[in-house]
């Protein structure tokens, strides 16, 4: 066993009250030449770290703490690790492992009574990890393939054909019951299990005019995963916005917003996507940008921080970030005009972490759903705990993600609702595979699809449950 590390080596230690227990001293490290974890370029802020009073209120909402019950996989434990890094501790594999294990769900930000901005801390830390940590070849390859695929619509589109053919072939059943993929390549198996049953793509025009009196002109982000895997959500968003009096502008040139890159410390990539997105919507001349994917909206609202060091974009990014609205947020601001037709259905509403925790949007979608005659809303127990999707976390960490997904699925099933409604494509994919595994038959829909069905007077059966 190695020598235990003490915070301060000097001074008499006969009384723990005075035994060098203030957290100011450097952590002694074995070799003096060892490189500290962080460089000087935007390390996690010491000032933000000092906001943490170690009360522990974050622990019960942290998905990894609920899984493993250990301090280093909790928000306050990770903050301790950041502090150690700032005080000169090296970026060991162990340290990185605990930063990587954070889902970035931000439930701790909601839970924290002291207002610790953990979101800013972990994002700064992730950038440092990407800069200074050498990952294993397997991990590198996995991440490289994810980031070569997901943010690019054309590549995702190219995948649609083979995926639909695979899904139509009956092979998925064989693959899943054999368990072969789980054994050979669990991360690949996770991806296979998450892929949604693809629907037909509806082509969106570049402008959808307002129905009746025009109340607003808005730009709409189509996103990458949303656009390719859940095209029906985009079509429904455009229809609902138009029905509520919005001219909807859908810039053709838009690409990925960079959410996955922002949330995984890939700074340059994130900056590139952010600039391109700002360019696309500035060219469209819209004052408001509407987003229907929680993760995208949350990172677009952070563009001011992403591009703070870019003199050409810093100001524009601030203006842009202020113009971003989640679709439920905008609809609540506008107020309802389009008539709602009844939908006799019980709905469990799932707060996507990047909508609830990151954007504080909880009441608006619920209020919009309650406006639908006949619709009964039910709350899901442990609503604050992440479903385990978390961007690409479920692909990189298949086993714990499955545990979290199954826990969420059990809580959803306990509501007895017929339809699960949420606002993020990642959650829909994650939760649907868990629900399927435990044999719960429940329909799945994005909030906006429910509103769309109600406005158009479609029957509940159009929203599932699936066969």
């Amino acid at each position, binding site marked *: 066993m190695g020598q*235990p590390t003490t915070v301060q080596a000097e001074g008499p230690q*006969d009384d723990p009250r005075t035994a060098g227990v203030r957290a100011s001293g450097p952590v002694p490290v074995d070799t003096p030449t060892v490189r500290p974890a962080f460089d000087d370029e935007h390390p996690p802020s010491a000032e933000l770290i000092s906001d943490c009073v*170690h009360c522990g209120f974050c622990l019960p909402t942290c998905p990894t703490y609920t899984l493993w019950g250990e*301090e280093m996989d909790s928000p306050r434990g990770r903050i*301790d690790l950041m502090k*150690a890094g700032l005080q000169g501790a090296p970026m060991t594999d162990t340290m990185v492992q605990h930063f990587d294990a954070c889902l970035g769900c931000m439930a701790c930000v909601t839970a924290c009574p002291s207002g610790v901005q953990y979101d800013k801390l972990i994002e700064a830390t992730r950038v440092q990890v990407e800069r200074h940590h050498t990952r294993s070849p397997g991990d590198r390859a996995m991440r490289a393939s994810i980031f070569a695929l997901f943010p690019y619509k054309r590549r995702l589109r190219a995948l649609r054909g083979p995926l639909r053919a695979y899904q139509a072939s009956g092979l998925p059943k064989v693959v899943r019951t054999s368990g072969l993929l789980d054994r050979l390549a669990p991360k690949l198996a996770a991806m296979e299990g998450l892929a949604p049953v693809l629907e037909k793509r509806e082509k969106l025009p570049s402008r959808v005019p307002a129905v009746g009196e025009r109340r607003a002109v808005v730009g709409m982000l189509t996103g990458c995963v949303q656009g390719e895997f859940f095209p029906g959500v985009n079509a429904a968003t455009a229809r609902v916005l138009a029905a509520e009096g919005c001219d909807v502008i859908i810039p053709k040139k838009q690409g990925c917003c960079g959410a996955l890159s922002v949330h995984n410390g890939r700074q340059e990539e994130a900056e590139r996507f952010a600039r391109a997105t700002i360019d696309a919507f500035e060219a469209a001349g819209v004052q408001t940008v509407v987003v229907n994917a929680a993760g995208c909206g949350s990172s677009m609202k952070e563009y001011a921080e992403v591009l703070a060091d870019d003199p050409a974009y810093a100001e524009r990014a601030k203006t842009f970030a202020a113009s971003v609205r989640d679709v439920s947020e905008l609809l609540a601001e506008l107020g309802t005009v389009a008539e709602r037709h009844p939908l006799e259905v019980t709905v469990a509403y799932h707060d996507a972490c990047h909508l609830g925790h990151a954007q504080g949007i909880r009441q608006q979608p619920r209020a919009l759903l309650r406006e639908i005659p006949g619709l009964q809303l039910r709350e899901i127990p442990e609503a604050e705990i992440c479903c385990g999707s978390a961007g690409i976390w479920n692909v990189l960490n298949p086993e714990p993600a499955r545990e979290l997904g199954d826990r969420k699925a059990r809580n959803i099933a306990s509501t007895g609702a017929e339809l699960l409604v949420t606002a993020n494509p990642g959650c829909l994919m994650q939760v649907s595979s868990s629900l399927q595994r435990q044999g719960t038959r429940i329909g799945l829909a994005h909030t906006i699809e429910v509103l769309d069905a109600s406005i158009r007077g479609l029957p509940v059966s159009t929203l599932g449950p699936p066969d």
Partner: protein
Amino acid sequence: MSGTHGTQTSAGPVLGDTPPEATAATGEVGDNAAGMAAVGRVARALMPDTGVISDPTQLRTYECDGLAHYRVTPALVVLPETTEQLAGVVRACAEHGVPFVARGSGTGLSGGALPRADGVLVVTSRMRTIREVRRADQRAVLEPGVINLDVTRAATGEGYYYAPDPSSQQICSIGGNLAENSGGAHCLKYGFTSNHVLGAELVTPQGDVVQLGGLAPDAPGYDLLGTVVGSEGTLGIATTATVRLVRLPEEVRTLLVGFRSTDDAGAATSAIIGSGVLPAAIEMMDALAIEAAEAAVHCNYPDGAGAVLVIELDGPAAEVQHEYDVVERLCQEHGSFELRLAIDATERALIWKGRKSAFAAVGRISPDYIVQDGVIPRTALPEVLRAIADLSSSSGVRVANVFHAGDGNLHPLVLFDDGKPGAGEAAEKVSGAILDLCITHGGAITGEHGVGVDKAAYMPKMFTDDDLDTMQLVRCAFDPGGIANPGKVFPTPRLCGEVPGKRKHAHPLVEAGLADAF
């Protein structure tokens, strides 16, 4: 634990050859590296890899509990999942003279779970199964890592709840509650943890597993359970607790009452209790605490209030209505300017959110602060509060007050900025002076947070040497090796005599003037 002033004790037992590293109240690494290594081997044999932590990076995250001023990195952390694993580690500690410290969720505010650099930190966060909820018996059987609020969640469907509700109830563990005899806002009417724990399975400091109490109340023989509850981890580690569940009241009314001053609010509190009404809770917050809570959770407390009372009445509807009438009248008579009644669960939750997040919320108005915990007779409230205000203005150190007014349990929050030279010392001085105030007004140095490491030095101010020696006899009876959470609760390390072996010369710690022979 109450004082037994003037108790005479006979001369202490003969000092044994207890190894210094097993008894010193130090955070220093002893020369018992071999013992430590042996305990590590035992732990690894008993538990999966993930249950034994020795990586310095990971150990660092366990260096403090909720009292972050004190930090010591433990030599080893173990996360047992069963009583057998936990007892096995403790037995190895006893065999090799290695100290151990128990920790639940690490939210304690007196440094009770501050690790030892030469010891093992035994964390119960993976022993979190609610074994049984016996509705008809109004009992629940819990593992020590079960979170306080989860007990209530598990019992609510059955019409019951677990009454002790520390502010940290959403995360603090039952084992920690038992060790600290935790209270909470509602202990005015319902009592502390000791009133709700009926039995416990205890791993003694020698590693034996014993049963104290049981499902039935008032077990014959010595009340060892009563001794263990509140012993701050010095008499062993509870691995199971059998607790009482309380019937959910028919009606609950939560009132938020605004006063111009803490004097008025204090007088109203005394008047309410004096009238014979026993609310479930009477909590007070002063202007500075209100400001912090507003900043944190936007609880919308009355504008311009110098103090607010949160009063909760519960019980049968008719009784609550009667109590409400009395409380409303007494508040008005004592100068309340606004009285709000929470009309639904959401409003009630918001009122409580302001109160329960107040400690941590102070982080919004001050970079650093000390949470003090003292208790005074309720009638001394206005006088002590004025004295605290005087201390604050003469020293320039801001003090926010949040407390359980109904039973005189003060929680002054002493604010400071550790970045400013001397500010920490000034704050500690004020914090200490507040405790002196409590003692001189007939109170005690802790109401519910425990003594831990933080207040050990104040124990002699409250107790005579004889009192402390008597307590020490109890400790030695349970823990002759002095390995269970050493350095906590008592100011001076003492050595127990019941250790085998002959004394050849004075103990090195006695020679060094660090310990007394006992």
